[in-house]
């Protein structure tokens, strides 16, 4: 029996059951939610090192070589994304056990959380454009509701802005799908790629590409389309901020962009320049906007834009080494950014404050939070031997190798600025003198610490992914799936 549909079926089942039985006991929502995420994490680990799989939903075999049902495709890139989504998701759901006690209606929180997981998993395993859109909407709508979960003025406004922009982006994506369907007569991504290759890349395909760039660019918050992120990500409850910044923008933004541009439409020089320009812009402007922030979560949110800029730039460069670096950075960013947001959540949980100017010396009272945040800060700033260093190094090397010296210099500048802004976080937040106000502050509860330590260990250990034996299994395969470009159709449809 093939297990791919379970990635969607398990979280959905738990989410559907939750409103029926969630009220019976206090513990049940926690139990069900964490059981589901644990199962998903285990399932995604089982996907490592399996060959590429194609699953035909409903058992509809192709007619005359044209797929008529929905295909689910799990290739190297999808496995990488599944791992990120489900492992981070598990850590975050463990964290939520304690953290969400501050809010009411935990059952509904877990329902929405699992729906978001299901949506992201659905996007990643889908091999069909419209199916991708539907699951993208599941994830997106769950995330809108989760941003507004606290129902305070700040959260509601951020959620409204986020949802308006997200819905407009979905409109663009849907028009793009319509144009592509009209052009190729099919929704299957592999088949569409094949038809576009046969027809030659026509104006319609480029127009659809532009629409997708706007739509998915907005979902990924790349620079001209970033306006919603600095409001939405800090306003959400901390575990959700971690999911949004750590995973969601990658799964429904960057991943979808990669899939469509590399595997369906095919990258040409113009699009790759556009991606590089947008990436470099986000990288630099994001970090400059971040360094002036005093709100801890807002600072992290701007850094998400900046770090996504690295990924998009590397993917735009498009050489195998650059793509490898970009994907590696994507994985790393998922770990350290979600860890940072969980740290900020722990600080908010214990002190009720996230303004850096009012903190100071928290290391003395909250050793676990302080230590893990130090690890995460050094990772994101690119200090060896933490994971962020290796991925940034690869990206810079790849830029130099491809002859884009300017981009390499910008990446170095961005990295230095990142270091500066995280020195600021550490200096004002965790080191220095303890203020008298915080004398009675206690360390965050045990489940929150467990999840932060888990992510910190990942941050330290992730550098090992570059070791020869490990690298072929995971990163190389993912990079191959991207750089292989339109070979994708041949692989999915079978020769």
């Amino acid at each position: 029996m093939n297990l791919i549909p379970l990635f969607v079926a398990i979280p959905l089942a738990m989410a559907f059951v939750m409103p029926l039985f969630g009220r019976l006991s206090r513990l049940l929502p926690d139990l069900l939610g964490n059981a589901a995420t644990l199962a998903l994490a285990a399932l995604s680990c089982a996907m490592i090192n399996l060959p590429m799989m194609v699953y035909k939903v409903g058992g509809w075999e192709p007619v005359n070589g044209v797929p008529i049902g929905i295909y689910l495709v799990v290739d190297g890139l999808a496995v990488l994304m599944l791992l990120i989504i489900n492992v981070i998701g598990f850590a975050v759901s463990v964290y939520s056990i304690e953290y969400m006690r501050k809010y009411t209606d935990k059952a509904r929180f877990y329902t929405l959380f699992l729906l978001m997981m299901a949506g992201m998993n659905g996007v990643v395993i889908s091999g069909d454009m419209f199916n991708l859109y539907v699951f993208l909407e599941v994830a997106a709508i769950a995330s809108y509701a989760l941003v507004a979960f606290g129902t305070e003025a700040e959260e509601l406004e951020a959620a409204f802005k986020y949802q308006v922009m997200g819905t407009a982006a979905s409109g663009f994506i849907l028009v793009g799908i319509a144009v592509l369907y009209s052009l190729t007569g099919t929704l299957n991504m592999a088949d569409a790629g094949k038809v576009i290759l046969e027809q030659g890349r026509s104006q319609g395909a480029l127009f659809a590409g532009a629409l997708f760039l706007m739509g998915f660019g907005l979902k990924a918050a790349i620079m001209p389309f970033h306006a919603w992120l600095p409001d939405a990500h800090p306003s959400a409850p901390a575990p959700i901020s971690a999911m949004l910044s750590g995973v969601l923008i990658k799964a429904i933004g960057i991943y979808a962009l990669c899939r469509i541009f590399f595997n369906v439409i095919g990258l040409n020089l113009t699009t790759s320049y556009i991606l590089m320009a947008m990436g470099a812009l986000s990288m630099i402007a994001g970090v400059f906007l971040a360094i002036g922030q005093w709100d801890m979560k807002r600072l992290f949110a701007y850094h998400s834009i900046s770090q996504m800029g690295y990924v998009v730039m590397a993917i735009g460069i498009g050489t195998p080494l650059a793509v490898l670096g970009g994907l590696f950075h994507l994985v790393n960013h998922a770990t350290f950014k979600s860890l940072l947001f969980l740290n900020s959540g722990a600080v908010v949980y214990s002190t009720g404050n996230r303004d850096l100017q009012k903190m100071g010396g928290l290391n003395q009272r909250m050793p676990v939070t302080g230590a893990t945040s130090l690890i995460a800060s050094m990772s994101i700033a690119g200090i060896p031997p933490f994971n962020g260093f290796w991925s940034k190094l690869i990206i810079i090397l790849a830029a130099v190798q491809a002859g884009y010296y300017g981009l390499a210099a910008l990446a170095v500048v961005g990295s230095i600025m990142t270091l500066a802004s995280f020195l600021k976080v550490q200096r004002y937040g965790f080191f220095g003198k303890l203020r008298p106000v915080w004398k009675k502050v206690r360390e965050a509860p045990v489940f929150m610490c467990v999840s932060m330590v888990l992510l910190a260990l990942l941050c330290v250990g992730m550098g090992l992914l570059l070791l020869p034996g490990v690298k072929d299994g995971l990163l190389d395969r993912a990079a191959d799936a991207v750089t292989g470009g339109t070979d994708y159709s041949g692989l999915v449809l079978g020769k």
Partner: protein
Amino acid sequence: MIIVLCPLIVLMILGGVVALEATSLLSSVVLLGIVGFGLSAAFLILQAPDLAIVQIVVETLSLIIFIAVILKTTSKDTSTRGRGRTPHYVMAAAFALIFVLAASWALASIPPFGMPSLRMAEAYLSPNSLLQPTGAANLVAAVILDFRGYDTLGEATVLFTAVMGVLAVLRKTGRKP
């Protein structure tokens, strides 16, 4: 065909513009009905009875929801034209112009109206359709519930998510004191 549809869509566009410009929210919601019911008529002309039915009932229900919200709040659009918004309008106009030009350039390459390329859909509409593999007489139902049933699971999930979201957003207290 085009002779009927053209004025209809123009009417919808006008309805949309007027709905956006009306000063009373109640009338702008009702004017939105022009667009919605016009769309349903367009579906009927385009030989899509399923869509026409769904569009009518959905339009009615969303009208009820809109009106329920407005009756609970206010129906006056008191918003001001914020200061220094001219660059905003210029940018919007420029974007619209570029979008229309790009669309006209791109639409030249897609198949002409009325002659779609049926690559995937061929199998759904086989001439021998009495024997089509799902056994459903309504081909749209066959597509949404069998060939693409997985999509429909996603669709139902979206609705479920939205209900959970509405219930979560409108609960009495968000945070414990």
